[in-house]
């Protein structure tokens, strides 16, 4: 048994999906927590300070590489598995099997994942690119703001950037659609990831099912409320 044999087997590939998926699930908790600072109603100071901490701390920057790796591996492995699975029935049925035993979103993880990947490309372009690459290669830099009473420490004003980006109703709608895709993707993915890593105790599976549903709905609503509350000016 080699590592290659393990990770190229059907269950091994699913393990890759599950582990990267669970990593991304934990990342989303950090992401939503930090972004919730926009609702502090302090003109974005708490949020900008937090974002600056994340951007300037070495540990977080190293983890950011892991985050990109996680997204890329999860996307590629997912697309590979999806294509392979779709090729296993060359002659289809005249009468489709349909809904029995499964939910539409469970059967549509490839589609939902692709939508999320497209969303992510837009999302990274909106915020990560100007924040990290601003000033380089003629990328437009972010505004700077000083919270140190003129001591000279400048913070990227990501808060102002968010307000700017979310003035466009089409962008707001795209973000909300992205959050809906995320909710359904997680609704299946959360529980499925634990099944793939081998949780088969029914007590835990039941707990994970409810935990997964709660997580999927809450985190997606929280994310969706960010562009919505900025578009409607509910934060100041």
């Amino acid at each position, binding site marked *: 048994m080699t590592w290659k044999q393990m990770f190229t087997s059907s269950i091994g590939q699913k393990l890759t999906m599950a582990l990267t998926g669970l990593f991304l699930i934990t990342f989303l908790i950090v992401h939503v927590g930090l972004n919730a600072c926009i609702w502090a109603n302090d003109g974005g100071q708490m949020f900008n300070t937090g974002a600056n901490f994340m951007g300037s701390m070495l540990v977080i920057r190293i983890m950011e590489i892991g985050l990109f790796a996680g997204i890329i591996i999860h996307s590629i492995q997912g697309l590979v598995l999806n294509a392979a699975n779709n090729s296993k029935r060359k002659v289809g*049925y005249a009468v489709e099997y349909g809904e*029995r035993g499964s939910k539409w979103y469970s059967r549509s993880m490839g589609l939902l994942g692709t939508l999320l990947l497209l969303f992510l490309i837009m999302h990274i372009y909106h915020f990560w690119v100007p924040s990290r690459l601003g000033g380089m290669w003629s990328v437009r830099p972010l505004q700077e703001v000083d919270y140190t009473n003129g001591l000279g420490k400048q913070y990227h004003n990501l808060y102002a950037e968010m307000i700017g980006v979310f003035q466009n109703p089409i962008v707001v709608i795209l973000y909300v659609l992205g959050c809906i895709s995320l909710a359904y993707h997680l609704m299946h993915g959360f529980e499925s990831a634990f099944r793939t890593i081998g949780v088969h105790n029914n007590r835990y599976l039941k707990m994970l099912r409810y935990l997964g549903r709660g997580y999927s709905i809450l985190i997606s609503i929280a994310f969706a409320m960010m562009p919505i509350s900025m578009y409607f000016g509910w934060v100041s």
Partner: protein
Amino acid sequence: MEHYNMNLTLKIWRQKDAKAKGGFETYQVKNISSEMSFLEMIDVLNEELITEGKDPIAFDHDCREGICGSCSMYINGKPHGPWKATTVCQLHMRAFKDGETVVVEPWRANAFPVVKDLVVDRSAFDRIVQAGGYISVNTGNAVDGNAIPVDKDKADKSFAAAACIACGACVAACKNSSAMLFVSAKVSHLALLPQGQPERKSRAINMVAQMDKEGFGSCTNIGACEATCPKEIRLTNIARLNAEYLSAALTIDREN
């Protein structure tokens, strides 16, 4: 339940051999008793076809008691037809109404190529079982059945998994044509018993390797297989197989 006779329109997949291009043929059957099984209804139709000098419809069947796993018809969009936890041979015609149109197709999966009409080649399952779905015991006198204590809870779970008749309905229902419910039932059956311990790791690895080699898809935990299984094999078995496979693959130390 009241007995009644019915007339039905059947649309049945006909395919001369593995290489031929198949298609649906429409048949009218008359005065079918509601007490007949679905296979008996096909028998009646085949008698008529033989009398007319036509080629009868080829289909797999053996025990007609719901325990051998031979019958394999995909009826109106579901393996084994509309009833829950039922094989085609135990599906009775009272499941249908007079004048109904019934569409019958073979299992569809690359790993289950059509041999003729409704008969598919399921020898891939045999090869998966050969790869590890057994235990090795010494010959000699039969050992006392109670010599090795077995936990009741595990014995029950093992028995429930052993109920799998390897019909392939799980593959037929799965959008990925995955055989994971079948393999997980076979692995769970033995992994839960003391007799299955010596070959536990190699069994999981070898059976999954053979499953992949046969061209089945991977599992996405959607649950379509569980809803169609005539023996109600639970989806939990797949999670157990994942645990068996991963713990084996992470710890086994062998060259190949």
